[in-house]
């Protein structure tokens, strides 16, 4: 049975109908037309779908709708708002840190959360923050460089 849920997504209040067990990822992609979070594994093991729920980074593929009622969700599309880029998005472009790019949206969500708590992370801190993400194209080195660089940009 579908239920009605109301939550904040990237700062906007939304009401959606979904079965309680339907994943947040499915609702973001199919009902809210936010395609940034991607399906990679469906079991919390790859990071492609990561979003922030009340500030915590979680796999949206493994987050049922019943658990996000009245919560605040931020996806890659909401990291900076409007058509602007978050400094870490810009840093990824500056370092050309991507190949296929499928992993990047989730990586960016984790990286932005890291920068919120640790605005000047060193390489070690970045690697730790991203260790739940997989990147099959082998762009890890560039991504780490970019996130460190984002921390060094003047705020």
């Amino acid at each position, binding site marked *: 049975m579908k239920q009605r849920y109301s939550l904040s997504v990237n700062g906007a209040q939304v009401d959606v109908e*979904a*079965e309680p*067990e*339907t*994943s947040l990822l*499915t609702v973001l*992609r*199919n009902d809210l*037309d*936010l*395609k*940034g*979070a*991607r*399906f*990679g*594994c*469906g*079991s919390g*093991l*790859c990071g*492609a779908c990561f979003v922030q729920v009340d500030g915590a980074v979680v796999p949206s593929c493994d987050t049922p709708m019943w658990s996000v009622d009245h919560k605040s969700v931020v*996806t*890659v*599309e909401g990291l900076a708002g409007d058509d602007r*880029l978050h400094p870490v*998005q810009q840093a*990824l*472009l500056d370092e*050309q840190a*991507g*190949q*296929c*790019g*499928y*992993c*990047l*949206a989730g990586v*960016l969500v984790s990286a932005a959360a890291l920068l919120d708590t640790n605005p000047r992370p060193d390489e070690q801190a970045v*690697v*730790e923050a*991203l*260790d739940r*993400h*997989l*990147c*099959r*194209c*082998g*762009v*890890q*080195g*560039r*991504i*780490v460089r970019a996130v460190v660089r984002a921390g060094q940009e003047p705020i």
Partner: protein
Amino acid sequence: MSLASTPPDIPTLPKSLAANPILSRWVNVHSDGVVDVRVGKVELGQGILTALAQLAADELDVDLAQVRMLPANTASGPDEGLTSGSMSVADSGPAVRLVAANVRALFVGEAARRWQVDAERVTVVSGRIASPQTPDTTSYAELAESVDLGIAADAGVPVKTLEQQRVTGTSAPRLDLPDKVAGRARFIHDLRLPGQLFGRVLRPPSPGARLVAVDVSRVADLDVQVVRDGSFLGVVGADEAQATRAVEILRGSTTWDERDTLPDESDLDTYLRAGPHEPIPVIEDDPGTQQHDRGLRATYSRPFIAHASMAPSCGIALWQGDGRLAVWSHSQGIHGLRNAIAQVLDLEPESVTVEHAEGAGCYGHNGADDAAFDAVLLARAVPGRPVQVQWSRADELSWSPFGSAMTADVNATVDEQGRLTSWAYDVWSQGHTARPGYAGNPGLLAATHLEAPWTYSAPTDPPAARGGGTTRNAVPIYGIPHRRITGHRLTETSIRSSALRALGAHMNVFAIESFMDELAQLVGQDPLAFRLAHLDDERGRRVLQAAARAAGWGQDTPDGVGRGIGFARYKGRGAYCAVVAEVEAEHDVRVRRLTIAVDVGRVVNPDGVRNQIEGGATQATSWTVKERVRFDRRRVTSDDWERYPILLFSEAPQIDVEIVPNPGLPSLGAGEAAQGPTTAAIANAVADAIGIRVRHLPLTADAVVAAIESEQL
């Protein structure tokens, strides 16, 4: 030494252009000044469209921002075969350049005709067309309506010289990256066509399974339609979550007839050598017995390796009212896919259109074609509605074709001066291609599950002219007087294998370059010096020396750290790549640093080349230290990221890439060059670190322990 060929007297069209000579199939100029370029090559995450756009911008004398690269399409774009084998810039580049030069010439001609001036003196800068003979200027945009591009390319139109190119050779940023960083819809998974439904397939539990019965009543209360054809079972519905749930419910309400069809994973060596085989004689000199020389022999192997792309395969199909079929796929070969679909369903190929849509990183023949065909079968049940099929992670890891397991014996002799005198090499493998159309088979997975199932012959190998498969890079680049090199391709196989980045070159380079180190040790020489002593190829020498220099070769390493080198020229005629690895091998193998030098001839985009090499080397590191497809005699068991672990951020090596410049020589692809050299360098570094040679991949803690134990026997 120069590889530059002398121009033939009569100019001829590059291969893919000769097959598709009409300009408008490649380029269209719009009245807003945008130039659409449609090539037959597809974006796989490797940045090919950016590189080709750079070439086009230079020939047209427009800014890169004016060029728009369109997705490949079987109906309206050129057929350039597969996007594979690191051949895209080499294949498509000359065609794109000549087409763009022709287009520029036509626009210049039109301007000259209007102004009554000399075409030779007309200039084009950033798309503005001018002449010293008139104060007027015009542009591509203004002339777009008057120039007819529906004519054949003229091979005699000159293209830009190296000095005239402005965009080519620069690190232009990737055209597709802004969308991906912003999280915009870009992938096939993101497409939502009007009226689109979601499809899911319930794959058999094992490769040899047949569906006996299914109880569909258990999904009766869900809003899905069940589609069955033999052992092919799937659902279609408007709600993706319901479709996924329906498949899970059906999984528990099906009865399958399963059999043990898989080889013994713990003894792939026996499986690969048992045959029957097709022998592939590569070099047939008789090495004879070099009486007074010292000999050495060794066996190396690798397991089956999965593509393990970050996204599950996805396909979309729509059966239109008039019997026409439209398909969207992230296939590497949309024309081959179209023909295969037509073959299975007995359709006219012309009634099927396949358009490319981007998927996640593609490193060979993955599940893209299969997912497209799944969509075709499910969409047949709902004519007029597009159906998008997305695989599960488990299906992606267990049903996409694998890179074949391989095993090789090397047997060589050296004389008293430490020079190689003979080399015998045998390599056993399944074939490295089962792409749509291989050996006349459609090659589509679901076709083997239909009521009237297709059975396919064993995977084959690309012909020697395309680099071979089992024997790709089986010939050492080093000077050796007597050689016998033979491949043995299994002609009866029970696991589906196909093209995975570098094909057999990964294993062959690992074996050759490991063995070169073993021989160097035998004769008491430094591994680099031993290689150089047997290497005449100047470009190769430069690349080896550049990597060694950058890595500090010869300097001491800290305790517990080993250093090793690996080198090859991909396919014997492609890019040169040398890798120096630094590893720690105390408990398990940690690759700290890879220092790489490459020579890819003329570089279209230096940062793009670096990115490809870094990515290839990182992926090869993952193959080397972690990866192995697991199965029992019935099922593939490595079907999630815990059972098929790949390299983590914390395990990724630091990588430095040096491009050895060779701008006067043809461009060589970079995508596959690093695979073999990286694995070999890591294996050699492990031997350097622990004093024991590990000859069987992956180089896990268990493999290291096993090597130590067998050494002690």
